[in-house]
């Protein structure tokens, strides 16, 4: 069976869901004729037509607002943010309107907001952001951050079928760099379930998206030194699968959280707090974090490499933690 890239998996998920359910529509900037800035929606207009694949003005608030309205009318819209950095333009309508709709008014908003996030491709400070925590901190939204083609496809399908607003962060570094064989036919991956990617006993590394791959690379290197890390892929940040994290910490007694998001207010802080509250007595060492710096994403390749975590930085922190 041929391998599927992360980007192809996302395209396949949209294609199959639009084929399955005429209520699924796509809107965003350059998603139609051009097929999206990263070609995620290539071929969808030709197959599904102008009514279902809608090129919009450069108006993120209007794109999200219209998607909310379509969801109210019981469609299942997918709205693309050309780069996830631009989601900041629609922050108000996402956090004040979509997120509160079900709790306040009993009005569900089935809607997926998806777009490319993350650095490592020298996109500069406005095309490399990781703004997931703004939305994790907003009750009413679900936040999904897949790391593999299989998860990207299965989670996007789950997101489209969900009755809530789901923010789907696609790591652009992974678009064409990771590929794997994925199951044929219709399958979904449940939102809110983490997965143990590598079994180990000496410490737990929790990560997601592109940093999962850096963590796995570090774990492979550490194994040669006789250190056996367990690697947990969060896959979903909200709702957070605390049970899988706690089960792993109870086994290894040490925790390292790795993310590309900046340090202060990143998910690592929340995970550390949960572990303190519920598994403090299980810990044999302080919880550690490897994250990006608390700065905007710098442009120069040397600076960006210094800014972001990588396998070497993860391995160094894990080594120290293992020795503690």
């Amino acid at each position: 069976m041929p391998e599927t890239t992360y980007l192809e998996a996302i395209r396949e998920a949209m294609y199959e869901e639009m084929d399955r359910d005429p209520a699924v529509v796509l809107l965003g900037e350059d998603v139609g004729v051009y097929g999206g800035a990263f070609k995620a929606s290539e071929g969808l207009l030709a197959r599904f037509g102008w009514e279902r694949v809608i090129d919009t003005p450069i108006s993120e608030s209007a794109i999200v607002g219209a998607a909310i309205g379509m969801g109210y009318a019981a469609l299942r819209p997918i709205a693309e943010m050309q780069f996830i950095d631009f989601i900041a333009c629609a922050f108000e309508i996402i956090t004040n309107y979509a997120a509160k709709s079900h709790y306040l008014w009993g009005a569900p908003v089935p809607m997926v907001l998806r777009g490319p996030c993350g650095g490592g491709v020298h996109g500069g400070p406005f095309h490399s952001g990781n703004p997931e925590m703004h939305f994790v901190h907003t009750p009413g939204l679900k936040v999904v951050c897949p790391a593999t083609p299989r998860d990207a496809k299965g989670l996007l399908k789950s997101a489209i079928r969900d009755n809530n607003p789901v923010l789907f962060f696609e790591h652009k570094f992974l678009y064409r760099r990771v590929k794997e064989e994925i199951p044929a036919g219709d399958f979904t991956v449940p939102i809110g379930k983490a997965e143990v990617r590598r079994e180990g006993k000496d410490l737990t590394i929790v990560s997601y998206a592109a940093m999962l791959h850096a963590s796995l690379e570090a774990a492979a290197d550490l194994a040669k030194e006789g250190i056996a890390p367990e690697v947990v892929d969060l896959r979903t940040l909200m709702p957070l699968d605390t049970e899988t994290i706690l089960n792993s910490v109870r086994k290894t007694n040490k925790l390292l959280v790795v993310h590309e998001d900046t340090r202060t207010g990143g998910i690592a802080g929340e995970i550390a707090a949960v572990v303190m509250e519920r598994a403090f007595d299980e810990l044999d060492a302080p919880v550690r974090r490897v994250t990006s710096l608390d700065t905007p994403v710098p442009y120069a390749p040397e600076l960006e490499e210094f800014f972001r975590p990588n396998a070497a930085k993860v391995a160094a922190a894990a080594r120290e933690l293992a020795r503690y």
Partner: protein
Amino acid sequence: MASALTREQHLELYYYMRLNRELEAQMARLFRQNKILGGLYSSLGQEAISVGTAYALGPGDWIAPMIRNIGALLVRGVKPREVLTQHMARYTSPTRGRDTTSHMADLKRRHIVAPTSVLGDLIPVMAGIALAGRYLGQKIVTMTWIGDGGSSTGVFHEGLNFAAVQKAPFVLIVENNQWAYSTPVEKQAALTNFADRAKAYGIRSEIVDGNDVVAVVRTARDAAEHARSGRGPVLIEAKTLRMQGHAQHDAAEYVPRATLEEWKRRDPLDRFEKLLTEKKLWDAKTKKEIDDRIANEIRADVEFAENSPPPPLESAAVGVYCEGCHTVEADWQRPKEEVMPPRSSVKAEWRFPAASPNGAKPPAAKRETPKAKSEKKPARAAARVKAGR
């Protein structure tokens, strides 16, 4: 042009406008008794706009009211008890005590979308419903309201521009009540008429006397017909004056007394009552019957609200997400096959009628030199089209 209103419709309009006014007067009393908390916003003097515009819609159409559009909710079938329990934060309220004022929704039955206190969001939301309605073959119109102040927001522009580009069946009512909290309209926009904003989006606009309910109904019906027929959104500017402060706490001393006096003489209910009498559409007995009915309704619903319990504490912690409590099922009014392959499939390339996507041409050259006689206009035009392709 929409057809004339019948006697029954005139009386119905009076009922809703009077109910709107009396309900708000009752809520002001409850506010002073500390039974309504937070902010209480008055639509005194603006009832003809809320009632008249909503009255122009059909049962399948959608509305999203703003805070001064209690009248639109009443027309849509919302009962005084729903408004009262909502303001009094009771468990029997449409939001079970979770939200206040007109912030309530009923998507499935009455097609009502809730507003938030952030102005402008409803424009793209209602544009989205309008597009979904067209996609589903429903032939609906969507409507929302915004003030002179709200028209200064970024999402107003984004939403209306998007609706215009998509020719969404959408009607926007700009209630120009001349004051946004304490800021006069002159400091909101350098425009005399907010209807002029429509020109920027290439859509139709109308200006109506917002204190003349018959004119409001007629204008809104025409606009709804225009939008429903696929000719794009309509912006209606309804001119009026906010007769009270921003909310109950605000004495609005910044509004000139003379202006208030002038607009008091244009009170929409006084004017409409005079019209009903002049046209002999009612008599004192009919008026008393309607007024008594309203008083009884409000009395019963205040009692209901006052006897309603507050929400139980544990109810605060649930319901953030839909976990299967709602079904999401579109109301298809056209064959689904039309939007599925192979019928949905198209050639994915832009098609333009002219050389430039929107027909734009460079401005005509100034006539500085006389044209040479040998130049042939048709040949030049043909060359331009060819170059553009």
